């Protein structure tokens, strides 16, 4: 991933994955490594609001001709249909083909790349990257689930009234804080380089996203 302040992002790979932020980039990169998938460049916009600007900029880039597939990986947040539309509009705004369904790959036409959209955690479900990360953590350490639930319901907090995304973020950071001894404050992007990373990359929680990436690689 390029340092945006220093050098423009350059790439040679035919599959371009556009994520919302650096933490998403890191997850996708880890999954590509896990699956030994080749031919991907992974970059991020500055938030979902910038998907359209990023795609517009990408079609202007001197590397655009190399892109054979353009994938968008975003968060549903609390408004799955609005977030889906936002990602979809980013493609159609540049007259690119756009998929009709979550995780589908739309065929490229007239020299334009094929495209796909994957919204985390999955179709029409409120949540974000952290939702998947927490799911993966709990699949490995089920006993943490009780702690997180108790914290959720603790009368000293009002977490149970938070929306799904905020709760997922709270649960993720709490799980990291109590398991990642070498860096209890590690964020979702940095957790992968920690010795006590509680997120198992092999978790089935990521299988749907992995299947999407595999499909793109196989086309």
């Amino acid at each position: 991933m390029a340092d945006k302040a220093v050098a423009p992002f350059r790439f040679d790979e035919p599959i371009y994955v556009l994520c919302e932020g650096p933490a998403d980039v890191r997850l996708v990169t880890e999954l590509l490594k896990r699956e030994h998938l080749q031919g991907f460049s992974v970059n991020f916009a500055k938030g979902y609001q910038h998907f359209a600007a990023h795609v517009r900029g990408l079609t202007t880039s001197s590397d655009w001709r190399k892109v054979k597939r353009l994938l968008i990986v975003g968060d549903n947040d609390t408004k799955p249909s609005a977030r889906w539309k936002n990602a979809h509009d980013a493609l159609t705004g540049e007259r690119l083909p756009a998929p009709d369904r979550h995780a589908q790959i739309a065929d490229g036409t007239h020299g334009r790349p094929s495209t796909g959209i994957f919204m985390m955690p999955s179709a029409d479900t409120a949540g974000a990257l952290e939702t998947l990360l927490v799911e993966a953590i709990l699949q490995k350490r089920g006993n943490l689930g009780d702690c997180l639930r108790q914290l959720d319901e603790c009368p000293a907090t009002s977490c149970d009234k938070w929306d799904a995304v905020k709760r997922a973020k709270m649960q993720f950071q709490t799980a990291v804080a109590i398991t990642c001894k070498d860096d209890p404050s590690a964020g979702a992007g940095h957790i992968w380089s920690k010795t006590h990373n509680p997120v198992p990359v092999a978790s089935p929680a990521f299988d749907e996203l992995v299947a999407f990436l595999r499909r793109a690689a196989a086309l």
Partner: protein
Amino acid sequence: MIQDLEISNFRCFKALHIRDLSRFNVIVGRSGAGKTALLEALFFLASGGPQPILKIRQLRGLGEKTSISADTRSFRSLWRDFFFDFDEASTIELRSRGTDENARSLRVSYGSDGATVPFGEGSVDTLLRHATIDFEYEMANGRIVGCQVALTNQGLSFGAMVETFPAIFLSPAAREDPERNGQRFSFLSKRGEHEAVVSVIRKQFPFIENLSVEYSSDGTAMVHAKLHSMSEKVPLPLVSDGINKMLSILLAVDYCSHGIVLIDEMENGLYFDLMGRASKAILDAARESNTQLFVTTHSLEYLRALLPVAQEHPDDFQLLRTTNDNGASEIDCFDGRHFAAALEESLEIR
């Protein structure tokens, strides 16, 4: 303004059609991909004759003087590399569309004659096949006017230039003549309109109190600067290359009202901190005088400095990227919103 440009058989361009040109056209691309060639095509279109060849040779670093010997081959060597793939049997065609004053087409081809005329003393050895190259312009109103360059026994003869529209070609390889800048400044001053330019320069460089045209010690009239810190006025080129460049551009923009200013390697000589502000001031001046800018650059720093200006005035910008993958150059065009988005998202556009 030129909105649309077609080029055939010129330099590295086999056939090209550029649409939606704007006020401030930024040209990027690898070395040898045709950035300067595009400026040359525009310069020929505007100039109403073949005379730009002398300036272009100078800009291309082919020397201050153009000398040819008394034979057809030497004559043709002047023009040969303007033809795509050196195909001298083809016809160069350039066509601009837009406002009437800037719309025209130009066809350049060798004359069909081949008469033998005596050269010099007239001995058999110095006999010369009469060589000509024809520049034929078709104006917006359909009128066709021609201009011919011929190699005759009198030497090289340039026909009279036909109607031109204002065009100035600024290149780091050939700095703008200080005397010419002096003339342009004086022209402004006589109209009482120099203060706008002085004000822009003063705003960017507060240590400058005023500008005026004065005679230098060798008798050349050139722009001098009165600095707050010095008691005597100083020739502007001695104050700063960057300030002199900016003044050259501002004067060129004013001089080329309803015409074009072509700037090769815009970033050259401009301090990084000045690039954005200078570009804004130049755009403002171009809007004011209805001048169109074509600017080449390799510099990411310069492009990034343009971002706030392009974000503020996206309709005034167009990005043109030249590429040359298979011998013939192509140009991809992007509007100001795409240009700004790519810069904002830190994607490579050069």
